């Protein structure tokens, strides 16, 4: 991938804190100081368990949430400084939600759902049959589905409607939040093949959020692994997948049974079911569970170490 001069998306030191609690104010750092870039036509996968902050990160990028600190630059423009223009820019970055959210308005039929993104932005009339045909063909849906409500569609069909809606605005960036979670393997395969084809045809960039290693392997050019709001590993996907550096990444891959059947020894005891209280240690967030943790890990937050070309790891020990 030849590096373009200006990346499509550039995130610097992004953080989002949530405070809760009546008396004892508990501050949860859902996303803590994350930086990355994304170029045109590229897919960056964000991997992590639930609670790692990856969903929040996705929403921060498309500005459905405001960051506490940090900057997001899209197409060279700082999103924080735009006000009215944000709406225009919003068309260029779209988000596909995990199906379980029910991201489709249950009171609208599919026909209206497909036309909604453009009509809300004042771009089309509500009866544009050409657009409908184009969208249906793009995601391989049959016209008889147009009169159905979302709950009358299967999971895979709902996801495809979601993709068609996002694509109808011709975005340059799509944040895909667990798009294939809990769908059947063959439907997952269909969805991912569709997403790859769209990327090839239209040069769309994806921010692919997932906890599924198989999906990541198929989609990602670059990869970031998140743990408790921070990046622990970041760089070229192929390199990380074949040679993971950070202990968390390694155990994540092992848990996903990456190597069919053979268990990777030594990481059994890592998976303490974590308490819901998010206790912040001064040092590395993973030190509580890490078998290699030393004294320095508990005291000092690791900086990003360059392990190889385009492969950074945040760890003291590696």
């Amino acid at each position: 991938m030849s590096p373009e001069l200006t990346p499509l998306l550039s995130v610097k030191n992004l953080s989002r804190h949530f405070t809760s609690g009546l008396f004892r104010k508990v501050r949860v750092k859902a996303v803590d100081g994350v930086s990355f870039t994304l170029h045109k036509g590229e897919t960056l996968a964000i991997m992590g368990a639930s609670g790692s902050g990856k969903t929040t990160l996705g929403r921060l990028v498309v500005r459905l949430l405001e960051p506490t600190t940090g900057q997001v630059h899209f197409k060279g423009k700082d999103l924080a400084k735009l006000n009215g223009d944000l709406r225009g820019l919003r068309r260029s970055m779209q988000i596909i939600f995990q199906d379980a959210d029910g991201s489709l308005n249950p009171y609208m039929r599919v026909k209206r759902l497909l036309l909604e993104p453009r009509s809300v932005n004042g771009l089309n009339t509500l009866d544009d049959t050409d657009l409908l045909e184009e969208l249906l063909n793009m995601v391989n849906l049959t016209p008889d589905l147009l009169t159905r409500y979302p709950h009358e569609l299967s999971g895979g069909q709902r996801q495809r409607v979601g993709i068609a809606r996002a694509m109808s605005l011709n975005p340059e960036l799509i944040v895909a939040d667990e798009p294939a979670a809990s769908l059947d393997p063959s439907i997952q395969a269909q969805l991912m093949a569709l997403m790859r084809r769209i990327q090839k045809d239209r040069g769309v960039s994806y921010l692919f959020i997932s906890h599924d290693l198989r999906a990541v392997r198929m989609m990602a050019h670059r990869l970031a692994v998140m743990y408790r709001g921070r990046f622990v590993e970041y760089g070229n996907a192929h390199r990380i997948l074949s040679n993971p550096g950070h202990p968390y990444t390694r155990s994540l891959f092992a848990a996903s049974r990456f190597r069919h059947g053979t268990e990777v020894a030594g990481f059994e005891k890592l998976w303490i079911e974590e308490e819901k209280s998010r206790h912040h240690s001064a040092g590395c967030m993973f030190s509580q569970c890490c078998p290699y943790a030393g004294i320095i890990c508990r005291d000092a937050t690791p900086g990003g170490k360059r392990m190889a070309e385009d492969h950074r790891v945040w760890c003291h020990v590696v």
Partner: protein
Amino acid sequence: MRRITARTRFLGLPTGLFAGLWLMILLVAAGVTAPWISPHDPVEQHLEKRLSPPCPEFLLGTDALGRCVASRLIYGIRPSVGISLSVTALVAAVGMAVGMLSAYYRALDNIMMRVTDCFFAFPAIVLALVMIAILGPGIKSLVIALAVPGWPKYARVVRSVALSVKERGFVEATRAIGGRNTYILCRCMLPAVWAPVMTIATVGMGGKVIHIASLGFLGLGVQPPTPEWGTILNQGLPFLGIAPHISLSAGAFIMITVLSFTLVGEGLREAADAKHNAPAMEQLLKVQIP
């Protein structure tokens, strides 16, 4: 003979809803066309035929002043159904607006809900009496007495439904494609809120009919000579022994009207439930039942 259950359908609608809907339509139509369909003039007195039982000339008999009970009851549809329909429409609109706005704009929520609580505390009958004491009996005080305590329950229910809708993914998704606040209110929240509002409204209309009749019974609502069911019921009381048809038929009209509203309300609620709970069953069985 088929057992009529909740599942029995008649021409595509559940039986209860079907019956209730027809009754409602008949009532409203009768009320509107009262001058044409009532057999006699409701205020015309046939003194020689006072307190006569139902007969071919006077279908429901006559009252103490020889007036045709049937015609009076038909004309009585107008105040009862008319006022309850219009007041319900008004309070539903106000309640929906308050509920949706306080759910959507959290800054307004607190103050709007406190105001709602104040209005909730008004006991309806007491307020009616106060209004009547101030303004004198009549339709104006009746409407105020019905409307003022009527809207808070809509606001409460609409707010809670709107809050739960707000948390759902598709509201966020609509924002993501660039939907503005008014669009989200109309297209995402309003459809969700509609079903519970319709249910409360239809059942509420039944309640208002009873309210109006109660106040009329006490002589405090609609004033004679306007025929009104409550007043007719009251007027028939001294004659229950010799001419029960007056009070009984007035009572029957009240009962049938309230029943029809309740049937429609229940039917709407069940239909709304079915539409949005069917997917849950399908999810459980993971099968597409077409």
